[in-house]
C-alpha cells in the first residue's frame, strides 16, 4: 500500500523523459520579469513548429536578476539554461535546438547535468558559474528544477521518501534524536535548536497537539521562504507531517502565510490537495494509524504576527499581540494545547535530514551553526537573488564571489545590512565575518532570517537606520510604552538629523533611548528595534556627525542636505542638463560650464542622471 502510492507517481513522472522539456521560471520574480507573455510565445512557437514536448513552469532557481529564465532539455542531452530571454532570443533558441540539434551559443548561460545524458561541448556547467560555485543546495535543491505544482516531480526527486522511512521504521523519539544530531537551528531568526523544541513539545502532556508553520516572512528585503513555498511546497508539507509524527501524533497543522504571497498560497493549496489525494495527508497516512491534516491561514498585514506568540493569537482570531513567555508554545500554543512552531526553511530541511541522516547535515556549516542557510542577496550587488551556502561562509565570499561584487563598478562597497529591522550594518572591515548565528552577532548585526542588503558609497547610513526604525515604529503593536513611544522619539531625532537640524548630543540621546527600549520591551520587535541604529552609530559615527555638524550627507541621499554642483573640470559644456531641470535651476550657455541655482533646486536628480560625464555631484 505504502510503496504502491509512491511508485504510481514516480512511474507517471518518468514516462515523459523521452520528450524534450522546456522549463520556464514562473515564480514571482519570473512573472515580474515578463515570464507570462514569454510562455505564450513559447506555446505559439511550439505550435508553429508542431513540436511534441513538455513545458514545465518551475520555481525560482535563485538567479532572480537574470529572469526570465528558460531551460531546454533535449532527450539524452544536458539541460541548457538561458537567461534574460526575450522574444527575439526565443526564435534563435528554438532554431538551435529543434532544427540544428545544437544550442544557441550566443545566449546560453550554462548547462545542468541530467543523469545518463550527454553534455554539450563548450558550455560551462552550472555548478562552475561563480554564482553557484560556493553554494550548497539542500533546502533549495528542488527550487527551479521541478514543477512545483506536480507531486510526481517532487516524488521523482526523493520527495516523501523521508516520510515513508519515518512512518515505517522509526519511533518519534528516534526522529527527534536525528534532528537533534543534525544540529539544525530555527531558520526564522531565533536560532533555537529544532530538536530540542520538538523534544519539549513531545514531552508536553495531552493527546491534542498542533504543528504550525511560520510563513509570515515579514522582514523587508527577505524572500527565502517565498522561494521555497513557491518552488517546492511539498517539502514544507513533508516537514510538517514528520514534525506531527515526532511531537506525538499531532492531528492538525496550520500554515500562517502572509497575504502578500498570493502565488505561494496558490501553490500550497494545490500541494495540500494532491498530498491528500495520495494519502500523504488525511486519515491513516500511507496505511499507518497516523492522521494529520493542514489548513492555510492568511495573514492580514501585521509584521508583529511573525513573532510566534502573536502569530498564535492571530491564528485564533485575536488581535495579533505577543504574550509574555512562559508559557512557551511547546506547553500552551494553539487553543491552549502544546504546539510546535517552525519556520518554512526549518521545515524544508527536515525531509533531507531524515533521508540522509543528522550527521550528514551536520557535516556542513560552522562549529555552532550546522548545515546551510539561504540568503536573499539584494541591493547594490551585481547578482541579486536567492542563494544557499554552508553556514559560516565569509560575507566577502557571499557578496564578491557569489554576488559578483558591486552593481556599479565605480562605486565601492560601504556596508551590508543583515537581519532586517532587527539587525545591523557590517562595514568593509567586517567583510571577513563568517556568516553564522554567533559571528554575525559579534559583528553587531544578526544573521536573522537571511536578508542581506548590500549598500554602496552612494547609500546613506543614517537614512537606512531611519528607514528601519520607521518600519518598526509603524509595526509596533503598541502594547508596551517603551517600544511604542521610545521608538517614536528615536525616529524624531533621526528625522531631525537627516533634515539637517541635528544637534550635538543627539547621538548620546539615541544610544540612551536604544538601551531603554531594548531592555523594556516585551517581544523581540521592540527588543531589537534599536539594533539598526546602534550598529550604525558604532561603525559610522563620522557619517552621523557629518549630518549633524557639517549638515552634509556623504551618500547624497538626504534631500535637505544635498547640494548639487557642477564640477568645472569635468563639465564638457554639452548642455544636456539644462532642458531636463523641472524647476529651471540649471543655467547653461553654449560653450559655458553649466551652473545650478541651489535656492530653487528641488533635488530631483534629473540633471545628475542626464549628465553623461558625471560632472554633477
Amino acid at each position, binding site marked *: 500500500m505504502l510503496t504502491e502510492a509512491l511508485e504510481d507517481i514516480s512511474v507517471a513522472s518518468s514516462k515523459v523523459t523521452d520528450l524534450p522539456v522546456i522549463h520556464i521560471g514562473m515564480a514571482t520574480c519570473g512573472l*515580474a520579469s515578463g515570464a507570462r507573455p514569454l510562455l505564450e510565445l513559447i506555446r505559439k512557437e511550439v505550435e508553429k513548429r508542431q513540436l511534441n514536448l513538455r513545458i514545465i513552469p518551475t520555481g525560482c532557481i535563485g538567479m532572480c536578476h537574470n529572469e526570465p529564465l528558460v531551460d531546454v532539455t533535449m532527450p539524452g542531452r544536458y539541460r541548457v539554461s538561458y537567461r534574460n530571454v526575450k522574444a527575439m532570443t526565443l526564435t534563435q533558441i528554438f532554431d538551435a535546438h529543434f532544427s540544428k540539434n545544437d544550442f544557441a551559443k550566443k545566449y546560453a548561460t550554462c548547462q545542468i547535468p541530467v543523469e545518463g545524458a550527454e553534455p554539450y561541448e563548450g558550455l560551462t556547467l552550472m555548478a562552475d558559474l561563480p554564482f553557484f560555485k560556493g553554494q550548497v543546495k539542500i533546502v533549495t535543491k528542488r527550487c527551479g528544477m521541478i514543477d512545483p505544482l506536480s507531486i510526481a516531480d517532487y516524488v521523482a526527486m526523493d520527495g516523501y521518501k523521508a516520510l515513508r522511512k519515518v512512518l515505517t521504521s522509526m519511533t518519534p523519539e528516534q526522529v527527534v534524536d536525528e534532528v537533534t544530531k543534525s544540529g539544525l537551528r530555527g531558520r526564522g531568526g531565533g536560532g533555537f535548536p529544532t530538536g530540542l523544541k520538538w523534544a519539549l513539545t513531545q514531552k508536553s502532556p495531552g493527546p491534542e497537539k498542533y504543528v504550525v508553520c511560520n510563513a509570515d516572512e515579514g522582514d*523587508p528585503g*527577505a524572500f527565502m521562504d517565498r522561494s521555497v513555498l513557491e518552488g517546492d511546497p511539498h517539502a514544507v508539507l513533508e516537514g510538517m507531517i514528520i514534525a506531527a509524527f515526532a511531537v506525538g501524533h499531532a492531528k492538525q497543522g496550520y500554515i500562517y502565510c502572509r497575504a*502578500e504571497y498570493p502565488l505561494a498560497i496558490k501553490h500550497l493549496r494545490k500541494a495540500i490537495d494532491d498530498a491528500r489525494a495520495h494519502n500523504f495527508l488525511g486519515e491513516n497516512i500511507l496505511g499507518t494509524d497516523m492522521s494529520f491534516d493542514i489548513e492555510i491561514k492568511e495573514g492580514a498585514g501585521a509584521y508583529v504576527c511573525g513573532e510566534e506568540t502573536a502569530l498564535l493569537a492571530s491564528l485564533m*482570531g485575536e488581535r495579533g499581540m505577543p504574550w509574555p513567555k512562559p508559557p512557551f508554545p511547546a506547553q500552551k500554543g494553539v487553543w491552549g494545547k502544546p504546539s510546535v512552531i517552525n519556520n518554512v526553511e526549518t521545515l524544508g530541511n527536515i525531509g533531507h535530514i531524515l533521508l540522509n541522516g543528522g550527521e550528514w547535515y551536520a557535516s556542513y556549516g560552522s562549529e555552532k551553526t550546522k548545515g546551510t542557510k539561504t540568503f536573499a542577496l*539584494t*541591493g547594490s550587488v551585481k547578482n541579486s537573488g536567492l542563494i544557499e551556502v554552508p553556514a559560516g561562509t565569509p560575507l566577502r565570499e557571499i557578496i564578491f564571489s557569489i554576488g559578483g561584487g558591486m552593481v556599479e563598478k565605480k562605486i565601492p562597497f560601504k556596508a551590508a545590512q543583515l537581519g532586517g529591522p532587527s539587525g545591523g550594518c557590517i562595514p568593509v572591515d567586517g567583510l571577513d565575518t563568517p556568516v553564522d548565528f554567533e559571528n554575525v552577532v559579534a559583528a553587531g548585526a544578526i544573521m536573522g532570517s537571511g536578508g542581506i*542588503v548590500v549598500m554602496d558609497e552612494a547609500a546613506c547610513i543614517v537614512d537606512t537606520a531611519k528607514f528601519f526604525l520607521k518600519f518598526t515604529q509603524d509595526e509596533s*503593536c503598541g502594547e508596551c510604552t517603551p517600544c511604542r513611544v521610545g521608538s517614536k522619539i528615536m525616529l524624531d531625532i533621526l528625522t531631525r538629523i537627516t533634515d539637517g537640524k541635528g544637534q550635538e548630543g543627539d547621538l548620546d540621546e539615541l544610544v540612551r533611548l536604544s538601551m531603554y527600549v531594548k531592555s523594556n520591551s516585551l517581544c523581540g520587535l521592540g527588543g531589537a528595534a534599536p539594533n539598526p541604529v546602534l550598529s550604525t552609530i558604532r561603525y559610522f559615527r563620522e557619517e552621523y556627525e557629518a549630518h549633524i555638524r557639517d549638515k552634509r550627507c556623504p551618500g547624497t541621499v538626504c534631500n535637505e542636505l544635498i547640494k548639487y554642483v557642477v564640477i568645472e573640470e569635468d563639465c564638457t559644456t554639452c548642455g544636456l542638463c539644462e532642458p531636463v531641470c523641472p524647476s529651471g535651476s540649471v543655467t547653461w550657455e553654449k560653450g559655458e560650464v553649466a551652473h545650478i541655482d541651489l535656492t530653487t533646486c528641488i533635488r530631483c536628480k534629473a540633471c545628475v542622471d542626464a549628465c553623461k560625464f558625471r560632472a554633477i555631484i
Partner: protein
Amino acid sequence: MAETKHVEVDLEDIEKICEEFENREGAVVQVLQKVQEKYGYVPGEALELVGEVLEIPKSKMYGVLTFYSQFYQEPRGKFILKVCVGTACHVRGAGLLVDKVREELHIEPGENTEDMLFTLEPVACLGSCALAPMAMVSGTAYGKLSADKMVSLIRQLEEETVHEEETV
C-alpha cells in the same frame, strides 16, 4: 479625497461566509478576509452582522479590524497600486515611484482617485527584492520599475478599463 458611496450588505451573504468556516469564533480574521474579498472593503454593516452571527462583541470586532493593516473600512479603487517600499526597493529608489504616483494621480498613500480607479498603497516587501523597485497590481508583479514605467503602467490600466467599458 473623493466622497465614497458605501455598498449594500446582504445578511444572507454574510451568513454564507460565516458558515463556510462553521461559524467558528476563531475564524473571524478569515471571515473578514472573505467579506473584504466580496465587497472590496469591510463595510460597517457587514462587521456588525459578522459579530452577530459569530456572537462576538462589537468592541472585539473593531479591535480585530483595526489591528490588521489589510482591512479597509472604506471602499477602494479598482486597481490597488501596491508600491513596495521595503529595504531593497527603498535602496533602489522606491520613494521616487511613490512620488510619481502621487504627482500623476493626485492622491496620497492610502487614498483613492476620484473616479475610484486607483488606490495608492505603499507596502513593506513583496518578496522579489532582486527586481527592485517592485510594484504589484491585482496580483501581478512588476519588477525593475522606473518612474516612467510606472506612468505607462497606469496609462495601460486606464486604457484597459476604457476598453472594457466600451465592450460592455
